[in-house]
Structure formats: C-alpha cells, structure tokens
C-alpha cells in the first residue's frame, strides 16, 4: 500500500562499557531488497538491529526513507514502519493467535475503539491469517503453537503492523526442513513492496532466498554483494564461509570479539 523505502546506515557505532560491538558500519539496503546479514557469533548482527530499532543507544545515522531512526523511542520507530522479530519468538503466549494479530494491527487505534470489544475480525488481520496459514488456528493460545507457527505468527504481526522494513532475527533457527521451505516462501510473498533484512546462520536457506548479502565481522562490514559475489570473496572464505558452507551453525573462527 505504501511505497517501499530503503534503509541507509552511515557510521553506525555501538559501544557497551568500552566494548565496541558495532564499529562504524555503513549499510544500504535498496527498497524491496531481501538482504541477508551474516557473520560469526559476536559480529554485531543483532546489535545492529537493536540499534536500528531503538533498543540500544548508537551513534552515527540510520535513515529509513526520509526518517532518521537513531535517537527515537522504540515505539516511535515502530510507528515509522520498522518491525522486527526476535531469535526466540516473542509472542503474547496467553492470548490467542487472533488477539496477537489484532494487537499488532492496532497501534493507531483511537481510545474509543480501544475501550470496546473487538467486533468482526479486521480485514488486514484476516488477510494476514490467510497469508501465514493460521486461519484455522486463530482461536488457540499463541503459547500452544508449534515452533514454526510461532515464527510465522511473528511475521504475520509485522504484516498487520504495516511494517515496511522487516528486520528478522534468525527466523528459521530450530525449524524442520519443511518449515524452512514454508518460511522462505512466506518471506518471498511478504517481501513485495517491503524491505527485508534477515539475520541468518543457515547457508542453505540463504542461498535459496537471499537477494543480496552483507557479511559482518567484528563489528565491521567485511563484504557485500550477491550470494555468488560474497561466496567468491576470499576474505569471507577465510573468516567464515569456507569453514561452514554446509552447516546450520557455523563455527566462529577467532571472531568472538
């Protein structure tokens, strides 16, 4: 519904008590791109997402479309159309699937609407239920969903939230092969006019569904390009890919910093 916008990060730096987690990262994600963010443990991937979504303080600049994100409150950034998921699904487990989605859809509701009971299922919620394949399970508690379904519900929540920049932190970790396939296809479907950034360790998943890849290493950008370009980069092979092309959880090589 809204035009896709790109993410533009310049000189992003995050320091925790003297420890530099993200060290001057420049990153451009074009509108509509599905960008995978990879790197050994401790490379600063999640911290980068935390900084962009306002969870941790950072210096530098992170612009989404025309809007500067750094320095704003978490909920204000979310209202600009930035949505994220977490490594472990963070749902409202004691609420139903429908209630989870309805809450995600409702940040702009008036107080009067909030104080009333939900009547019919809102159209966008029904559409999201259909998209993530949980229409049949809409009245079960989110806490009782299977692992894969939880991650899909998270993605569904981003859809109804009307997020135009999706930041997904390891969406297929711990999933079965079939669930990975389904998740990848779901990503392709929702990407459309959205900009997607995925943190992922699963190289197989990356090769199938990434448009472009950025490799982070020790808080800095090591390499960037298409999957083929990045795989061919000797620097990347040295620190990362060469040792872990066919594993789910690559062994990090001297990059714990």
């Amino acid at each position, binding site marked *: 519904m809204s035009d896709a916008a790109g993410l533009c990060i310049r000189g992003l730096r995050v320091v925790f008590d003297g420890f530099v987690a993200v060290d001057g990262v420049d990153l451009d994600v074009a509108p509509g791109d599905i960008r995978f963010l990879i790197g050994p443990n401790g490379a600063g991937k999640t911290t980068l997402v935390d900084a962009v*979504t306002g*969870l941790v303080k950072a210096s530098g600049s992170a612009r989404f479309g025309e809007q500067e994100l750094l320095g704003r*409150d*978490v*909920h204000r950034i*979310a*209202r600009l159309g930035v*949505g*994220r998921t*977490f490594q472990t699904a*963070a*749902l*409202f*487990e*004691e*609420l139903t699937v429908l*209630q*989870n989605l*309805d*809450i*995600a859809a*409702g*940040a*702009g*509701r008036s107080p009067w*609407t*909030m*104080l*009333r*009971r*939900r009547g019919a299922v809102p159209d966008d919620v029904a559409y999201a239920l259909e998209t993530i394949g949980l229409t*049949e399970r809409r009245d079960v508690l989110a806490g009782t969903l299977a692992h894969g379904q939880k991650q899909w519900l998270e993605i569904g*929540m981003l859809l109804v*939230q009307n997020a135009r920049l999706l930041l997904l932190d390891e969406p297929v970790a711990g999933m079965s092969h079939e669930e990975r396939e389904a998740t990848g296809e779901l990503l392709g479907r929702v990407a459309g006019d959205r900009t997607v950034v995925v943190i992922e360790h699963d190289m197989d998943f990356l090769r199938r569904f990434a448009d472009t890849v950025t490799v982070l290493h020790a808080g800095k950008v090591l390499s960037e390009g298409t999957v083929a370009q990045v795989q061919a980069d000797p620097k990347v092979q040295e620190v990362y890919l060469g040792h872990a092309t066919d594993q789910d959880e690559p062994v990090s090589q001297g990059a714990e910093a």
Partner: protein
Amino acid sequence: MSALTNPRARAWLGFALGAVVLFAAAPALLTDFRLSLLAKYLCFAIVAVGIGLAWGRGGLLTLGQGVFFGLGGYAMAMHLKLADAGEGNMPDFMELYGQLDELPSWWAPFANPVFALAATVLLPMLVAFGLGSLVFRRRVRGAYFAILSQALAAAMVILLIGQQGTTGGTNGLTDIEGFFGYDLDDPVNQRMVYFIIAGVLLALLALTRQLMNSRYGELLVAVRDSENRVRFLGYNPANVKLVAYVVAAGMAGLAGALFVPAVGIISPALIGIVPSIEFVIGVAVGGRAALLGPVLGAVAVAWAKTALSERFPGTWTYLQGAMFVLVVAFLPGGLASLWGMVKRRREAAPPAPESTERVLVKEVAA
C-alpha cells in the same frame, strides 16, 4: 444450555445472582451488626476489583493502594465532619486541640458536597496519574514499583500523624454522625449505606468486565506478559499501564469514601503499609486475574480475619501469612483458578478424536 455457554448471557446471569445475594439474601439473613460488617468487607472488595485489574491483568504489584483508599476516605470524612459541625464551625477535634483560630484553607472546599464527592475519586486518580507518569516512563517495574508504593503509603501515614492539628493525627477523623443529612446511628440509614456500597460494587464489576474484555484489556495482558514486544509494535506501554493504575486508584478512592459512612472512621492505621498489603493478600487468595476472584478473596479474607481474631486473637497474623504463602506457592491463580482446573479436567476426559473430526468436517465442507 445456551445460557451457560454464551459468555454474555452468563455474565447477565452472574450479575443477577450477585444482585439477589447482595440486595435480598444478605439483608434478610444477617443481623444489622453482621450486615454492617459486610458493608465494610464490600469496601475492601471494591479496592480488590481495582487491584485485580492493575495487578492481575496489568502486572502492576500495587502494594500501596492504602494511599488512594485514604485519600478518598479523608476527602469524604472531611466533608462529613464539616457537615456535622454545621456551617461556619470547625470540626470538633480542631476545637478540642485549640491550636487553630479558623478552618485551614485546604479544608474549606470540602464543605461543598459536590467538590468533596468528586474529590474522593478524582484526587486519588490525579495522584496516581502524576506518580504513574513519572514511574512508568522511567521503566520502574516489578519489586521496585511495589517498594515505591509501600514507601508512599508509609509517607502518607507519617504526614497524617505529623499534622495532628488539621488531620486528627493518629486518631484520624472519628465520630462521624451524619451522611448527607441522614443520621448514621439509625439502622435504616446504615442499611441504605450498605445498599449503596453493594450497588457501587456491582457497577464497578460491570465496568471492569467491559475493560477486561475490550481491546484495551487484551493489550494490558500483552504489556504484562511482554512489555518490550508491545513497544516494538508501536505502543507506549507506560500509557497502557497508566490507565489501569489510575482506574484502580479511582476505585480505591471510592472504596475509601464509602468506608467512612459504613464504619464511621478513617485513620492512618486503616491506610498504611499493613492494610495495603492486606488488600493484595485478599486479591491473591481469590485469584488476581479473574473478575470475581479479587472480590471473593477480599470478602473471604476480611471475614476470616473478623471470625478468627474474635476466637483466637493473636494468631490471625500467622494464619494470614500462611494462607498467602500457600496460595502463592501452590495456587498462583488463586481460588478462582480451581474452577478452571475442574473444568479442564472434565474437558480432558473425552479425548482428542472429537476435535480431529471437527477439522475433517470443515475440510469436507470446504
């Protein structure tokens, strides 16, 4: 059958039942003395409804509701004392202490019944709004919020005791005789006060039910269970919590205001740290997240306190502590959760086939 499964019909049935118990059965079966005790318990129950919303649904451990109960109680008592004294006179205790030549300026507005009645609810809400705005925005949570609430209750008691000349000090405001022109010594009028309290309780239950079932109620539970996640969806959790806290404070204030004509006194001992904790114990025992749990818990604990301390003075405190520990350790959902357990066990009896059948039927239909 349909009346038992349809939630709306069940709610009406519940309210009708509650009304019959409170308005017909209790006055018919209880002596005047016991009925006035019940009136007192129902005041605690009103506080409990608010705590159920703020703590049970919102996760805010409101250990200082005595402050709001006290604000409402003192606002009402100040008006009634002024009305007892008659226009232009000072309340009896001020004359007695003899330190003042005229009524303190902050007492004067309470001579107006409309102002005083509005203040019983709005004053606690205003204080809760100011405090909550500061505290929730700074992300003070959990035990820290509880300790802060306790400190506030302690501070209020110290302030009241310290200002004996204008607040009645440790004695509080006592010997209240009239209630908007009605003599409180008359059992008929005492009964009227009881009916008002019962009516207010039912009305507030209806209001709370609406709040819990609304979208706001769902959001409140979401904030309780995962505050950060709510933030990432574009809500400010501080505002969500603030609403529940302010509503609970208003209810505590109203309860305090009704307590005064029912019991005839408001004093620091009724609003300090210990009573504040007792409010929460009743809610925990009854079941904090359920609508009726807090009400039944508050009445049961208050009733047990009277009954047991009549017979075994001195042991009540231990019993109360033991009850609280037992409930928290073995029945976190309170007595109200027993009902759900029984229901689940009964539903568990006919096993899964039924549900798969239903799925199949749906698939065939589609």
